[in-house]
């Protein structure tokens, strides 16, 4: 039975992991699906605790887990379909698709709410997280994403038409673009997805799929025609540029250096931008490439870790210089482009300024870089608009790159600029996907004290997002945070503590913090007079005490006296956290309870049960219950020993009756 429970929990983890590995959902259902997947992922800590717990569970509880697994795996199948299935189907049948997703949510919510959490050995934090997931499922009920109506209308109008006239070209164009059905492999894949639906549906395809097949055929014809046309156009362009060359030849124009040409268009670049692999392309070309749904660098075939395009100012100025030297008019960047990119800035002057800053950041000498990073740090601090504009101008990857410089001032400015930028919700993801974490961790380890503090604060700010908690923990941020908590200034300690708190909400990070030795530091902060860190330390201890290793170490660190003291005299928040720690300690070793009682726990506990915060009351009640259970057990054992003692003299007579009647 015990093993079966572990196996069920493990298989639950496996299905959720499979869901997490589903790469990308079709844009039309992206939001619904990724929300669903994200919520399911939040359940993993619960499954882990169930798997690891030693307490047996009864058959009924096991059944609820098995039925949850069924719901999750049927969710998995449908999510797969939403990732691999026909794009056209997912739009045209959007009512059906959303209602299916809703149905899945409802089913998940039902199976989740049937689980008898009280009977399972689950920590409060995990329990709270599960409740959050449940409430998210409930809230999501009946809420449908506003999807792209134009796309939907277009597809349906194409279905009705399929005639011979070509006034539906614009609709085809929009559909092909929005669904990323512009390239042969995409089209082939879509056709296979439709084939799959027909083949697996068995038998009759149904009229709607036949219509979709028709629409796909129209899109294919359209795309193939476009390709032909653009090939013709290319020929035209080439011949006209040949014409130019012939006039140019008479002027003896030197050959344009290859580096000045976009690898995609082979034309001289007007607005060169760098992608995450370090390659440079003409902005419009690479934008088109990415918009078409590609996620690799066209030249190197490496995956693009982010879609950020950083202006290559140096190259642009080199091209301009070369043009000037050769008496050619330099290619102008499309004028409509630049102002749009920095639209968040109020004045063109500021837009210019930011462009200049980027330039210096990217290619200036260390002096330039230092002052530019410092200015960006201040600008990003000033207001929200600046944070958006600076990120849009491509500052994030540049700043991330500068984290690794040996110059400690540059490091400090860069990490602080990132901290200020991270206040903007949208930047949080961009910073992490620009690969900032390893750099920040490095600064946290080796930077100046101020840089370390700000690195910790940045990690705190980034860890607000759940996915980031996992990434940050995995990239080794926790041990240096623990070090900072131990040896930092007051500010450093605070920053480290808040970051650690956030990170340890994710179950997988608890063990990392514990093994990095956070607990002795925390218990010291509890007792150190004037540490000013009691609130933070107790809060972190409360979440770590649910972890089996954490429990053991706190238990052996002689923390009970101060915990009792906090329950007696602490702030409401500290009282509940101290009680929470105690609940966990006592669950594994009732001896702590005896000790706490001796230290006068009873009075404060009864008071907490009556006057504490909600959570405080709950914790106090749990402790009181344990105390009375313990007392009962003691009575029993006492009675037993007494009985045995009494029975001793009359041993011979007692053979017919058991001693404990």
């Amino acid at each position, binding site marked *: 039975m015990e093993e079966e429970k572990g196996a069920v929990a493990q298989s639950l983890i496996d299905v959720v992991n499979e869901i997490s590995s589903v790469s990308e959902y079709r844009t039309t259902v992206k939001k619904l699906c990724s929300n669903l997947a994200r919520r399911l992922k939040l359940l993993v800590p619960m499954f882990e605790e169930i798997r690891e717990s030693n307490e047996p569970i009864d058959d009924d509880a096991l059944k609820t887990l098995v039925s949850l697994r069924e719901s999750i795996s049927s969710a998995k199948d449908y999510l797969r379909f939403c990732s691999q299935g026909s794009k056209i189907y997912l739009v045209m049948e959007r009512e059906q698709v959303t209602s299916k997703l809703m149905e899945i949510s409802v089913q998940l919510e039902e199976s989740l709410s049937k689980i008898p959490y009280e009977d399972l050995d689950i920590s409060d934090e995990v329990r709270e997280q599960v409740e959050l997931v449940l409430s998210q499922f409930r809230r999501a009920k009946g809420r449908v994403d506003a999807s792209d109506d134009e796309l939907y209308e277009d597809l349906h109008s194409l279905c009705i038409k399929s005639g011979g006239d070509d006034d539906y070209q614009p609709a085809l164009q929009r559909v092909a673009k929005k669904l990323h059905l512009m390239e042969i492999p995409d*089209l082939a894949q*879509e056709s296979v997805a439709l*084939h799959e639906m027909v*083949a697996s549906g068995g038998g*009759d395809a149904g009229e709607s799929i*036949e219509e979709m097949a028709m629409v796909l*055929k129209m899109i294919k*014809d359209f795309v193939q025609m476009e390709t032909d046309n653009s090939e013709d156009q290319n020929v035209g362009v080439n011949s006209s540029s040949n014409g130019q060359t012939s006039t140019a030849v008479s002027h003896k124009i030197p050959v344009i250096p290859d580096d000045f040409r976009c690898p995609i268009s082979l034309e001289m670049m007007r607005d060169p931008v760098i992608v995450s692999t370090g390659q440079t392309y003409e902005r419009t070309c690479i934008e088109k490439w990415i918009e078409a749904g590609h996620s690799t660098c066209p030249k190197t075939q490496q995956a693009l870790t982010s879609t950020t395009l950083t202006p290559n100012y140096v190259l642009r100025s080199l091209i301009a210089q070369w043009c000037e030297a050769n008496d050619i008019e330099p290619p102008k960047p499309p004028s409509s482009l630049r102002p749009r990119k920095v639209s968040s800035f109020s004045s063109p002057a500021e837009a210019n300024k930011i462009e200049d800053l980027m330039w210096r950041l990217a290619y200036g000498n260390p002096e330039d870089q230092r002052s530019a990073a410092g200015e960006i740090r201040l600008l990003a601090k000033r207001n929200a608009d600046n944070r958006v504009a600076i990120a849009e101008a491509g500052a994030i990857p540049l700043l991330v790159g500068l984290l690794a410089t040996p110059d400690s001032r540059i490091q400090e400015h860069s990490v602080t600029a990132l901290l200020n930028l991270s206040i903007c919700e949208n930047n949080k993801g961009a910073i992490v996907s620009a690969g900032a974490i390893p750099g920040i961790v490095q600064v946290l380890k080796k930077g100046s004290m101020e840089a370390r503090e700000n690195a910790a604060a940045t990690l705190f700010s980034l860890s607000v997002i759940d996915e980031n908690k996992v990434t940050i923990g995995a990239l080794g941020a926790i041990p240096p945070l623990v070090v900072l908590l131990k040896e930092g200034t007051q500010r450093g300690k605070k920053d480290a503590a808040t970051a650690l708190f956030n990170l340890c909400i994710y179950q997988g990070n608890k063990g990392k913090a514990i093994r990095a030795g956070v607990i002795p530091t925390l218990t010291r902060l509890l007792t150190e007079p004037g540490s000013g860190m009691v609130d933070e330390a107790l809060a972190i201890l409360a979440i770590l005490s649910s972890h089996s290793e954490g429990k053991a170490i706190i238990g052996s660190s002689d923390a009970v006296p101060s915990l009792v003291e906090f329950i007696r005299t602490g702030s409401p928040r500290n009282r509940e956290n101290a009680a929470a720690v105690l609940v966990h300690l006592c669950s594994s070793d009732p001896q702590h309870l005896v000790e706490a009682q001796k230290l006068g726990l009873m009075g404060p506990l009864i008071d907490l049960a009556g006057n504490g915060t909600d959570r405080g009351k709950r914790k106090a009640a749990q402790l009181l219950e344990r105390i009375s259970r313990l007392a009962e057990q003691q009575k029993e054992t006492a009675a037993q020993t007494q009985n045995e003692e009494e029975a001793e003299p009359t041993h011979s007579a007692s053979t017919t009756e058991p001693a404990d009647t």
Partner: protein
Amino acid sequence: MAGGGGYGGASGKVDYVFKVVLIGDSAVGKSQLLARFARDEFSLDSKATIGVEFQTRTLLIEEKSVKAQIWDTAGQERYRAVTSAYYRGAVGAMLVYDITKRETFDHIPRWLEELRAHADKNIVIILIGNKSDLEDQRAIPTEDAKEFAEKEGLFFLETSALNATNVENSFNTLMTEIFNTVNKKSLSSAGNQGGLNNNHGSLAGKKIVIPGPGQEVTAKTSTCCSSS
């Protein structure tokens, strides 16, 4: 001939759905044969097929309504997207070559090999020499193809998608043969399995309505195809 009836999907009940696949080299005219059969259309500047496509047409065979679900795929390797999945559930295949291009005929054994590797072994196959309208450019004598077909146990016809010669005929031959095979199977297996769509294997087709008792199976009649 045009307007040979049944285009645009006869509404109403469908007794059978048969999946049929078209294969053969690029540009032999697979897509045009399908367009001619399903919609009575033809285009001279047809584009190479990308991935897979399908169209349907419902025929009447021995008073049963039979839906032909015809799948077409790219002959060009780089536009192809599926292999084994494409053949899954197929009960018939049209193996097409271009009578004016020798290599398309020379490749037929390869296509046959692929078909036999991936498709059901009872699949009904018809060999089609297309573009018979281009008699003056003929590269493959009819006799050669006939001989090959006999050797391999295939049906054989020469067609022209352009002027519609034999297109109707070739699909009808294929569908009727499938229909007969399925019904023979169903009768022979009805005794032990008590159903048509049992696991007897393979060539079940997709049966929508189980035919009532006393059904006549008139073998080898090629009356088919609904009203005109």
